[in-house]
């Protein structure tokens, strides 16, 4: 009996291998079920063994997952809309190509995204089988993510509830996405999510072009090592001044990693109305970097907050409002 089931057990495992790789559904290992099938003692509780109880519990968890999934989808859409709005504001901002490094401007990103789509279409025409395989894989993933029948029942009552909650939340999010896409509001953020930030900061040639000597341009092209831009200024009016540890924390300091001095000064000038100049060391000839002399633009109040907020702060604000957090916490605890 056991010998005849071994190939079948292996077949099931092979079938769900990809699913197990990608998901953390807390499904108990099938080995236990196999050992029970092979005649070993079943140490599970009545609840874990009961097919009826697990089906009922799974159904309730699936419904709860639907609700959480809709919330998660709504949040993702809000997040996407925020990013999309930010992207669109950069796209129409005439100064964006000036303040962004080569290849970093919204227009360049849009062109790159268009190029990627074009390349994919070109490859698809040359090799139609790859497109068919991609579509099959996507359909398979959708099936596993949203249909409880695509994966085996969990070995325990808790595991089965978690599995159904996951599938239910995926269904809820899918429902939200389809609904909002039909209404036209969800489509833009989804499309904008596809856009990747690309391109490296320009070298010293750009700063030579701004009128700096080669030595100063080289200095400006080196990575920025200063204190960064403080969203709430360090010397703010005392009643609203932050305690120093918080003021200098990553939640208040904008200091994008890997950014050159010159690029950071331009960003700092754009987002901080109190930042005008930066001294250059005597070793490169002294003098100052002056945003006004370079006729750089400054952002308005809204863009200042959008572009001047450090990433950890944005993430924290986003997480606090995430309506899908409860679902994730539920899954994480189990």
């Amino acid at each position: 009996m056991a010998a005849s089931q071994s190939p079948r057990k292996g077949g099931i495992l092979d079938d769900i291998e990809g699913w197990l790789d990608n998901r953390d559904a807390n499904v108990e290992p099938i080995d236990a079920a196999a050992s029970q099938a092979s005649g070993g003692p079943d140490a599970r509780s009545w609840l874990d063994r009961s097919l009826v109880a697990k089906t009922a519990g799974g159904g309730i968890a699936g419904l709860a997952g639907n609700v959480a999934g809709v919330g998660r989808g709504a949040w993702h859409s809000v997040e996407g809309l925020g990013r999309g709005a930010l992207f669109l504001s950069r796209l129409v901002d005439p100064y964006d190509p000036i303040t962004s490094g080569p290849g970093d401007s919204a227009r360049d990103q849009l062109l790159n995204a268009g190029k990627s789509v074009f390349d994919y279409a070109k490859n698809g025409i040359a090799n139609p089988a790859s497109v068919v395989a991609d579509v099959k894989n996507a359909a398979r993933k959708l099936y596993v993510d949203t249909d409880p029948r695509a994966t085996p029942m969990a070995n325990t009552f808790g595991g089965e509830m978690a599995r159904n909650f996951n599938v239910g939340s995926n269904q809820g999010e899918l429902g939200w996405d389809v609904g909002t896409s039909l209404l036209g509001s969800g489509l833009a953020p989804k499309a904008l999510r596809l856009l990747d930030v690309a391109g490296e900061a320009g070298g010293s040639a750009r700063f030579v072009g701004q009128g700096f000597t080669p030595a100063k341009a080289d200095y400006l092209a080196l990575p920025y090592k200063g204190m960064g831009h403080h969203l709430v200024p360090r010397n703010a009016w005392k009643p609203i001044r932050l305690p120093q540890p918080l003021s200098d924390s990553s939640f208040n300091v904008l200091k994008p990693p890997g950014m050159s001095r010159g690029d950071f000064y331009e960003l700092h000038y754009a987002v901080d109305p109190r930042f005008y100049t930066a001294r250059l060391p005597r070793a490169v000839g002294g003098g100052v970097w002056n945003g006004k002399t370079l006729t750089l633009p400054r952002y308005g109040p809204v863009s200042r907050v959008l572009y001047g907020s450090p990433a950890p702060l944005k993430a924290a604000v986003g997480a606090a409002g995430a309506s899908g957090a409860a679902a994730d916490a539920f899954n994480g605890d189990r």
Partner: protein
Amino acid sequence: MITIRRYAEFGCDFPDDTIWDAEETSIVQTGGKNLAESIAELTTRFGCVINELEDNLEHCWECRFSYEGLELGFHVYHAEPCILIVDQPLGFKRHFPLYCHVLMELNQAMRRDGRFHDLEWHTYDGTREGKEAYEVPVVGDIPEIDEIKQKPSFLKRLFGARKARPEIE
């Protein structure tokens, strides 16, 4: 109607006093301390009291001072050209004549001092300065200091002592 221009650009003969770290990659003390101290000293000549001089690292030097009880402040950037921004006072409109006097006195003091030159004033909305340059920071009918001092505040007028009633014998 009073027009105020509180952003100034000027040249100066002060040496760069920026303090760098050993590798000259980070600034330990912002340049312009000598400049800020000199402007602060100018304000004391017409009656201001300096409360605090602070390094806003990698930005500018800030000075908080008071004039006839009115709390004010300025930011100064040692650059090419140097920049001076005099903060607007918080509070009631009656403070504005005092503020105007500070700007006018500071303008005159800087013009008299040979260390400053090419001084010009611009309007400033808190984030951007106007393009037009002016020789004077304030235009309009500004009451004299004594007149301002004599005028009771709104609260004093509201809760101040009433005329004594004649006593009835």
